[in-house]
């Protein structure tokens, strides 16, 4: 069955969001809605869930029309069978972990409900916490409960609105691993909203690139992220495909085209990986071209300078498209110009390695 959505939504005084999407609900797999903050990703998700009513257009799941012009939300949110995980866990504070997971199982028999809650708690790594209250849980645990709660009623589709937004880095990594495992096990199709390429590469089978309220491109995350200059204007860094060349003092030695990078080792059997570099972790230096003696020091050419408030995004060619995010005064002091050669220094801690599977 296919979910088709083509709709428009304008908020008073805000931008107009337009979306044109088709998702295969028969197949499991995760679609990433990718783009900078404020580009309308969350609105698209809320319209799909029925939490927001579009101004015009049509949303249909197979033969069932969920929304159509002039008919409002023909199918309300509670009848769509769509699970939703919000940026914050939003657990019901008056219910226990088990009570939260069981919330959507009201029509199930008592024994089925008990079995389902136990199974979901096991799958989400929440065993032993069933009788806790939400306020007694860590951020990561809360979000895992939210995920288990959304998936327990066997939704035909689950929508994830930046589910890592409220978590610290360690909890994010853990939930990301859990999420992949859980979605695979339950074989439920999912749409994930994110502006982080790490999420897209680690979780996405398909990617929809949005900016300025519109869908720009669709394809595999790797293909879209690899296109130079194809990324939205907001900071999230850059992505390079790399080959693992060895392990040195707890770091992974990576080869990307003409450059060599050292990055934290995620462990496991690695061959080809994506190296995601956060723009804040890249600094620039002037200096002679061609030396590669120091670690994570890459010769690069400035392609373009782009102002972003007090910061400047420097688009570089370092054998792969690389973005550096530096302060405007640093850019002025260095008198950076397009076409010039510089040295890019990348902090190892600013690189995240994601295995390429298959």
């Amino acid at each position, binding site marked *: 069955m296919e979910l088709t959505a083509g709709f428009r939504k304008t908020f008073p005084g805000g931008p107009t969001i337009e979306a044109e999407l088709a998702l295969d609900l028969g197949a499991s797999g995760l679609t990433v809605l990718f783009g900078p903050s404020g580009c309308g990703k969350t609105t698209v998700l809320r319209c799909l869930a029925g939490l927001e009513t579009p101004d015009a257009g049509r949303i249909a799941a197979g033969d069932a029309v969920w929304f159509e012009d002039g008919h409002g939300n023909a199918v309300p949110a509670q009848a769509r*069978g769509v699970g939703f995980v919000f940026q*914050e866990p939003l657990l*019901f504070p008056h219910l226990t972990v088990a009570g939260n997971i069981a919330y959507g199982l009201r029509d199930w028999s008592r024994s089925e409900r008990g079995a389902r809650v136990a199974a979901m708690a096991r799958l989400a790594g929440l065993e032993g916490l069933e009788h806790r209250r939400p306020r007694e849980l860590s951020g990561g645990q809360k979000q895992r409960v939210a995920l288990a709660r959304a998936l327990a009623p066997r939704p035909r589709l689950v929508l994830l609105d930046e589910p890592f937004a409220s978590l610290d880095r360690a909890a994010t990594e853990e939930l990301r691993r859990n999420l992949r495992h859980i979605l695979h096990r339950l074989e439920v199709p999912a749409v994930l909203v994110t502006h982080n390429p790490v999420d897209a590469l680690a979780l996405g089978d398909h990617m929809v690139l949005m900016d300025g309220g519109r869908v720009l491109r669709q394809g595999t995350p790797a293909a879209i992220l690899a296109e130079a200059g194809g990324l939205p204007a907001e900071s999230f860094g850059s992505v390079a495909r790399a080959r693992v060349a060895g392990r040195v003092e707890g770091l992974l030695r990576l080869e990307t085209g003409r450059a060599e990078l050292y990055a934290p080792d995620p462990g496991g059997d690695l061959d080809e990986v994506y190296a995601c570099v956060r723009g804040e972790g890249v600094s620039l230096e002037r200096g002679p071209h061609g030396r590669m003696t120091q670690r994570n020091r890459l010769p690069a050419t400035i392609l373009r300078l782009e102002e972003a408030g007090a910061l400047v995004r420097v688009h570089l060619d370092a054998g792969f498209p690389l973005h550096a995010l530096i302060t405007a005064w640093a850019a002025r002091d260095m008198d950076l110009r397009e076409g010039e050669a510089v040295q890019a220094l990348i902090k190892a801690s600013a690189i995240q390695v994601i295995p390429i599977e298959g």
Partner: protein
Amino acid sequence: MDWEAIRLSLKLALCSTALLLPLGTALAWPLAFGRSRARLLLEAATSLPLVLPPTVLGFYLIVALGPRSPLGHAWESLTGSPLVFTFQGLLLAQTVTNLPFFLQPLVASLGGVDRRLLEAARTLGSGGAGTYLRVALPLAWRGLLSGAILAFAHAIGEFGVVLMVGGNIPGATRTASIALFDQVQAFEMAGANRTALLLLALALTVLSATAWLRSRERAWN
């Protein structure tokens, strides 16, 4: 002390609070979450007993409950006795009079419930009533409790409407506040003093309880 009057006051307050629980809980839903203009009218109508003089309210209640009204007529043909100047009539009048005291804390509490929790409930298959009963109301339980306590306290002390609708029949409609009025009229100052003190202590206890509940309103977060 007129213990019969005090017992009647307590019984009347308990029964009217019991009636208010389902009625007020149902009315609080559109008041807290309704989006139509009718909500404003409903809000004004349910707040009327706060500002109308008890005599005006009592007058309309006599009209509404009297033997010539559809309600009074139906009651009389069903039970053989009239509604006005009886305990049952007084109970209905008290329920209407105390409605805003029950509703205001409850609606305020419901307004403080995180709307995103209600959205989460909807994505889990809960319709409007289910979301109200399973999420909004349990989270607003302090408002529900302080509303019930306030309505109970006000029902014990209500004077004007009781006098208008119930009259002054010992054992049927003569409540503690009416008895106090009688005691003062008859210059029984010692008895009046005891009755007044009892009503004062009761009101103070009840208000302290609601103040304490409100101070703990945010304890969920």
